């Protein structure tokens, strides 16, 4: 059930117990079928667990959508080295608030998924890297980990299986870039949170230089359900390329913002107008960011025909990302919005790569000037070209995240920029 609102079209699997404080406790969780999946997994071979997840087609929920089982299968066998599983709970993408809810309502769901994944990849040690600002979620998670240890679910003999599974909750200091997988590893190791050059990929050289798999909280939360009910069961929702359900974090100008768990390939229009109760004051829709602020904006028209699955959103001209839907009505000042997003990325750029470090700040300066009514039409060309130089030229994709909203907004809302540049007209400002 969605939180704080729910809707009949939801398929509450991961979110079934959102809002239910009893599900937070070990006892309550076990009453709700918890840790059955882990027990089942521990009775299978690690490869069989991986195969099951592979067959389910579960894709990474952190944004890139990389097939989860495939990622696990990259882990070396018999490497003789310690393996690590990292759970990425550094949820920082503006507009995203699903992992926080998963952690604070169903911490055992996440721990269970982590334990299954760790077993599958041969890791004894799990690190759950929590965003620094997640005070409540971290508290709840830490308590749950303690409970799980006391019950023998974690520890040197996890559920009596003879397998050691340890969980360490690590709290970050609140940098966006530490949510980037290799930046997270550096941060975990006590270094600056700078993304690393790939290759080598984490499965070869990851945290502490050892083979590592890193998964998003929501991905791992789904793993337990897949193991318990089977890959085929999971595939009853969504499409061939995007099976299963997904938490959609809807924010912005809708009547009922919040988390909704829906089957993938759900129509965006239905999400806005039905599930979320429509736009506030029944205003006109202007734009939607479908996957968190780092993906291109969709115009109202594009949004209306968009289906929320990985391939569907790409078709519409954007990306599903982590399914953080930001809805903007006609009162929205797009220039200001985009400047605000670019400012975020400028502020959060780690500063390693020149295009990102210099480009993001330059873009913000131009946008600010335009916003203040001192822009020129050439500025729009400059913005397009400068952001073009920022795509695909850096170690991680933060740089691309600056380019996406800037380029898409200039392409789709050029008039709004021009109104500001030519006549000083700003949307939403009398």
């Amino acid at each position, binding site marked *: 059930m969605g939180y704080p609102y729910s809707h009949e079209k939801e398929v509450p699997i991961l979110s079934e117990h959102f809002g239910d404080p009893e599900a937070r406790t070990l006892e309550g969780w076990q009453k709700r079928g918890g840790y059955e999946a882990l027990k089942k997994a521990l009775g299978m071979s690690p490869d069989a667990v991986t195969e099951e997840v592979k067959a389910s087609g579960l894709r990474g929920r952190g944004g890139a959508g990389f097939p989860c089982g495939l990622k696990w299968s990259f882990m070396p066998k018999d490497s003789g080295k310690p393996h690590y599983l990292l759970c990425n709970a550094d949820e920082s993408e503006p507009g995203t608030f699903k992992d926080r809810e998963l952690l604070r309502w169903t911490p055992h769901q996440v721990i269970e998924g982590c334990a299954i994944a760790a077993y599958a990849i041969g890791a004894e040690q799990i690190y759950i890297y929590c965003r620094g600002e997640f005070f409540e979620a971290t508290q709840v998670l830490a308590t749950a980990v303690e409970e799980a240890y006391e019950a023998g679910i974690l520890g040197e003999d996890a559920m009596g299986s003879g397998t050691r599974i340890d969980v360490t909750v690590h709290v970050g200091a609140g940098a966006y870039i530490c949510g980037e997988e290799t930046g997270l590893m550096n941060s975990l190791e006590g270094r600056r949170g700078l993304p690393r050059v790939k290759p080598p990929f984490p499965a070869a050289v990851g945290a502490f230089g050892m083979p590592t798999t890193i998964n998003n909280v929501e991905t791992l939360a789904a793993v337990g359900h897949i193991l318990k009910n089977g890959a085929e069961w999971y595939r009853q929702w969504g499409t061939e390329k995007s099976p299963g359900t997904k938490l959609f974090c809807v924010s912005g100008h809708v009547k009922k913002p919040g988390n909704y768990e829906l089957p993938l390939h759900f129509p965006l229009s239905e999400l806005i107008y039905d599930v979320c109760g429509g736009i506030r004051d029944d205003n006109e829709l202007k734009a939607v960011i479908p996957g968190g602020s780092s993906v291109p904006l969709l115009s109202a028209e594009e949004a209306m025909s968009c289906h929320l699955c990985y391939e569907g959103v790409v078709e519409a001209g954007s990306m599903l990302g982590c399914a953080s839907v930001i809805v903007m009505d006609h009162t929205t000042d797009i220039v200001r919005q985009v400047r605000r997003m670019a400012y975020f990325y400028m502020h959060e750029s780690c*500063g*390693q790569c020149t295009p990102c470090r210099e480009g993001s*700040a330059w873009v913000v*300066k131009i946008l600010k000037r335009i916003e203040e009514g001192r822009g020129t039409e050439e500025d729009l060309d400059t913005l397009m070209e400068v952001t073009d130089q920022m795509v695909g*030229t850096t170690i991680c994709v933060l740089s691309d995240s600056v380019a996406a909203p800037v380029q898409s907004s200039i392409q789709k809302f050029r008039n709004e920029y021009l109104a500001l540049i030519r006549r000083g007209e700003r949307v939403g400002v009398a």
Partner: protein
Amino acid sequence: MAENGQNTETVTLTIDGRTVTVPKGTTILQAAEELGTTVPHYCYHAGLSSPAMCRLCLVEVEGAPKLMPSCVTQVMDGQVVHTESESAERMRRGVLEFYLVNHPLDCPICDQSGECKLQDYVHQEGREHGRSREPKRIFGRDDFGGDVLFYGDRCVMCTRCVRFMTEVEQKPLLTVVERGNRSVIDTFFEQGLEEAEWAGNVVDICPVGALVSKDFLHKARAWDLDHAPSVCPSCSQGCNIDLHTRDNLVQRLKPRANLEVNQYWMCDYGRGHYEWMNRGDRLEAPVVRESDRSVAMGWSEALEALKTRLQAASGGVKAVVSPYWSNEDIGAVVDLMDALGGGEMVFRSPRAEDESVLPGFPNLARRRDLAPNTTGLAALGASRVGDDGARGGLEDIDAHSGVLIVLGDALVDVTEGFAESAELTVYLGAFESAALADADFALPITTFAEQEGTFTNHEGRVQRFWPGLQAPGAARPAWLVLGALAGAISDHEAPIRADEAFQTLRGRSSLFEGLSYESLGTRGARAGEPATVSGD
């Protein structure tokens, strides 16, 4: 696998249409280097790790979805690389434009101007005009301590300096503070580079004018400097250096790459000890004491007179030589002593209490032995006397009744009337000295900075140096003067070129066995070891 355990597997690839075969594990940037193609770069430095963050060395690799950082991408068989394709050049133009968004463009007052990689690359292939018209970010200037001054606005954030301190000197005194566009290199609070002993290298490896030397600040423009390959005279390590000179003065010393001796580095101690090369109190003409007066004269006349006096002398020869003079100079002293029937040779040299090792390359240290050629001197038969301050130990010399030859040692600690008992005192030196009062012959010679020659370092490596300064007045290399004398006395041909003087060393010590002046090249060699080509 070769016998020495090194992997000799090779990989053949094509770079800009030319084929090259390199050892497996080589990076594209290094492979391009083999072909003489320099892929522009800032963060990459051969002596440091590669973070691949400047994004300037991106090249097109056929089949790769994106441009690849050539500094960390290893070569693969059959790989086809384009460093000058349209996409690679467009990307470089873009990155260079980014570098200039906040750069102050203060080249007219920047010490790096003329040897600045930002200047070079932008002139090579940057945009004619940058498109930014925004106000620039301003960091200002910061004193990092030691000899290092930081101009934050010029910084390209390559972090070479941070990595040098962390990886090579292994005293992490520099770091990047803040994030993103606010990133700036800084020291830790009040702790600066004072306690570093190799921090001068961060000035060398800074590709722009962000880190500059206080000593060199605004002293000379890079294009006005002449560079002479040389060897650092401040300890027995023998770091390969360049003398940077202008107006016949050494303006600064810079390390010269030699992977065997000093890699790319030199210590702050050696870097800072060059002012003596510029001393103005020079001996400029041969001066001969005739009964109660001293007479300046030309070389022919002076040497003729000296030859006569030497031939008439009877009491044997003793020599005090200086380890700051070359193998050839000392060899010529030996030649002269031989011509006069043999003698004894001593030297005094300063020593530090301990070594200062560079942790990232432990073969490199500021050695205890603070003179460049004690090994050469010892090999040629000189014995060390005196204390660690290069004083004392000359009691025997003082009482010597025969011929006394002093080469280079300023005899700063001797009192008036030194060597009064000597029959004949010949002083060959570069600078004014109190000892001159007692000399029968005072002959002006050149320092290592004004002549060609070789030093032998602590491990017996013989390394050549070249003159960076013009000799003052009539000063000549000691080997030329002494060689002429020895030749005249024993009636053989005297060396008139440095290589001929070097030839005379062969047979004097096994350290010179099998070495030829030519084959020493710019990086030197050790007897019995094949000459290696390394560095750069």
